[in-house]
């Protein structure tokens, strides 16, 4: 018995060692990448926020003065909340718009679903800048929409819908347009991988289509929905390119402020770094909350 046990244990030991070497080998490159291009840059920004690094040469010492000023004056909070509100609105609306689209593509059984998917992502074949600028032609005071309204008599000449461009609305519309495929794709993937047997089972148990959707499809597709929501929310809350192109004075966002602090007027890298890290912190917390919510939902479903 002992001999048998001894000989049986040796190969097991060897098998245990192999994954020990493989895992770091596989993870080494991506982890190094993350450290060099994510952790280190954030550490540098953090160092600027507390004056360990400074742009201007001269004596400097560790201080939380920029952080203190940020929290005590609260000048940037209204802008931050405005950006969060805009971003949440865009994310929610786009998810609502994209879900039926992804649902149709994944579950309708159409043989052309991959062709339609290609059509959905086709705008990505053109440049981001070009797509955003095209909206100016559509939304301007003499753009496509206003010209149509003038020609149909729905608006009097000389009285265009000026909120269409250089406004919050314009920023949210363009962001929604730009990010729509990013929302549709994760939802599509989730729905595509859905076990159809569950839907058949629901049907066998006399669930209506609505009940099957609400109690089977929707809960099981929530991971994709949350991922899609985060895909939009995280980048758009710090967005600055789109606001600078179509936002005008009213569509100015928190991300625009960060960029301007770094290089407009007079460089203020300390405050810019504080604003950047605050944004990163808030997004991290929100992401964790979403993930927790998602896991709780999964547990309930299980």
């Amino acid at each position, binding site marked *: 018995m002992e001999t048998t046990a001894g000989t049986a244990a040796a190969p097991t030991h060897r098998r245990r060692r192999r994954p020990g070497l493989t895992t770091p080998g596989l993870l080494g490159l991506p982890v190094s990448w993350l450290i060099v291009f994510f952790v280190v840059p954030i550490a540098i920004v953090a160092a600027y926020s507390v004056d360990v690094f400074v*742009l201007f040469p001269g004596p400097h010492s560790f201080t939380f003065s920029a952080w203190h000023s940020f929290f005590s004056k609260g000048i940037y909070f209204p802008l931050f909340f405005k950006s969060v509100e805009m971003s949440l609105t865009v994310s929610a609306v786009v998810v609502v718009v994209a879900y039926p689209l992804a649902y149709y593509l994944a579950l309708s059984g159409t043989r052309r679903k991959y062709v339609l998917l290609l059509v959905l992502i086709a705008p990505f074949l053109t440049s981001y800048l070009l797509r955003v600028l095209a909206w100016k032609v559509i939304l301007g005071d003499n753009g496509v929409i206003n010209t149509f309204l003038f020609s149909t008599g729905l608006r009097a000449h000389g009285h265009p819908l000026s909120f269409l461009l250089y406004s919050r609305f314009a920023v949210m519309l363009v962001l929604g347009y730009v990010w729509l495929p990013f929302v549709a794709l994760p939802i599509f993937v989730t729905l595509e991988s859905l076990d159809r047997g569950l839907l058949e089972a629901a049907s066998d148990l006399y669930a209506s289509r609505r009940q099957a959707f609400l109690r089977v499809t929707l809960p099981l597709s929530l991971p994709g929905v949350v991922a899609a929501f985060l895909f939009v929310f995280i980048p758009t809350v710090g967005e600055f390119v789109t606001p600078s192109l179509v936002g005008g004075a009213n569509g100015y966002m928190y991300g625009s402020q960060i960029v301007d602090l770094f290089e407009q007027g007079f460089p203020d890298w300390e405050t810019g770094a504080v604003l950047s890290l605050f944004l990163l912190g808030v997004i991290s917390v929100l992401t964790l909350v979403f993930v927790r919510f998602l896991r709780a939902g999964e547990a309930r479903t299980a």
Partner: protein
Amino acid sequence: MEGEPFDRRLSRADMLRLAAAAAGVGVVAGPAAAADAARARLSQESGRLQVMDWAGYCNDGGQSMFAAYVHKHPNNKPQFTHMTNESNALAQIHAGAHPDLFRPYCGWNKYFVQSGLVQPWNPKLISNFKHLNPSMVKAGQYNGKQYGIPDDWGFDAILYRKDKVHPKAKSWGLLFDERYKGKIAWFDDLEMITVAGLYLHAKNPWNQTSEELKRSQDFLMKKKHVARLIWASETDLWQAFGSGDIWVAYAWPNDWVQMKKKFPVVYMHPKEKPIAWVGMFMLLSGTPRFHLAHAYVDAWSSKKSGRWLENNYGYGHANLEAKPSSSALLKALQLSNPKAVRMPYAHLDRDIPQRQHYAQLWEQVKAS
């Protein structure tokens, strides 16, 4: 101290020969010898000349301004880095960029000199220097040394469509006129605090007291709703103005040149006076291409370059011999008036001692 690179390398005789050669005269020591000396000194400097300049003044349309330099120094062609504004240039330089020369506008001269980032030029190495507007040359001096070589100049004033807009007065107040709410474009720069100060009669708009600054900032915040666009790049302004989304704008002369191709426009000099600016080439301290930088600026300072700039960009040029083809531009820029950039015609832009504070106030206006 800043002149050391030049003093150290050249004897007085060399300097005379070099100056003569650069001017194309070469009669002091004979044409051949002078030219040889100049070439010898220039050939000691190697590599491509590093220039930090604004978009439109590099290899992206501004080639005519420095064509003579490229022709003479094909092995030391300029290599450009873009600066989006002086603040951006300052950040780039402190972050490790090493241009040989760059081109801020006159309001920043004192700051850059006092920061120790720049050294004075030797005007004797710039043959066209004697043709430059003395008033602008003076604006480039600090403590008797020539830190800035003036090049292009123009105004910050108001552009409006005369078929749509009927100002009550020739005033900066047009930028805050409620009648044109949603059709007005401001400029994304702390200069807006100065403009508010001018409009509200601050004693010194470039160095306002705390009360005046609060009043200027409150005023801008209160009036922000009339501004549809706060432009940072001219192309943004041209798109908005050209498509009819904007009728009134804080603008530069080139904007007037571009927009008058499409609309009947007026480039209004307000009664509070426009703000005049002069571009200044500045030489970075310790540059290894001291003479090449001078040669580059000399090319920029020529009558031919100046005329090209005026005709194509609608800005004035410091070379007094440069005159544009268009009499309308001549009149709009007051090019016949060598003192156009100074009072009683305009406020020449100047140092803002509280620049950082002004910048913070302006950022808060935008964030409001």
